[in-house]
């Protein structure tokens, strides 16, 4: 049973340089979702869905916490 798509799993055929280039391009594109990203994807704060400090330079706002841990660690 194939669990990931061919696009996901064909990385094995890439050289180190090709993998670096592929990742770099993907990272460029992935910046477009920065504002929509979960606050935390790893670590023990992943259960916090509403914090927090604004990530924008020079601004801040009071935190609000939720224990609804729909996001991953």
């Amino acid at each position, binding site marked *: 049973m194939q669990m990931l798509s061919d696009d996901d799993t064909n990385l094995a055929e890439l050289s180190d340089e090709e993998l670096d280039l592929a990742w770099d*391009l993907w990272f460029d594109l992935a910046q477009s979702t920065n504002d929509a990203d979960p606050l935390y994807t790893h670590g*023990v704060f992943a259960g916090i869905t509403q*914090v927090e400090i604004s990530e924008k330079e020079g601004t801040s706002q009071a935190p609000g916490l939720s224990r609804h841990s729909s996001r991953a660690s």
Partner: protein
Amino acid sequence: MAGNIYFELTRAFNAAGPIAVLASGQAVVYYRVAIMSKDGDWVIRETAEACAQVLTVLAERGAVYRAGAPLDPRWLAGGWSSHFEFFDDKRRRVRCDFFSRPPRVDPASLSRLYEGEAGSLLVIDLESLIRMKHTQRAKDYAVIGELAARLPPEQEIQFTTDPDRLLTLASSYHGVIARAAIQAAIAGDRDGVVVALAREQDALQRIDRARVRAYAAAAEPYLADVGTMSSADRRLPGVHARLVERAERLLPVVVRAQENVDADVE
């Protein structure tokens, strides 16, 4: 040259000796399974020197603390995580997360992680990575199937999430049968394998959710306090001592959380 900033950071953290092991999503990239994470996660050696080295590297890049525990051996030992971010020379957001006690990874495996040379790209081993991926997030279980396929058969059968692989591997398996899905596979019961895998995943997800909730509750007063800090106030290196002072008042080192996953699901 274009490259993976998280691989580069790993080498920088380890420049003076092995202290940081690349884990989670970027380890999945390293093993060429998938590109599916834009953050970096490291298991860090639980020493003041290791923390200082990481803070120095991050300060050189203009990093700020995100809301999280201070990078200090006391909170690392309590299972807490520390979080930072900065923008690279192409103005791309780079997020860096650190912990020293990855959940579900046994201490013996942890002690072996730091066997490497100065400046090396240390990456977590496959079995530990799989155990770390036993999270509440559904997509991790597809990745586990792909990671397990890179293990020897006697290990793969203990971790794979692929029912077909389990049925194939079970035909020549003669080891310990602690996993319900293996028992069903040996009996040739495909439906039983599928049900056992689903129950196993659900149990793992529930346990991880409970663990994270316990930390979220314990962190509430501390996060409310650090949430008042501006981005400028959170910039390294000056902020670190201030966060430690706040954590000493408001963030408990020890959190009671269920950790023995294997006992519950096998």
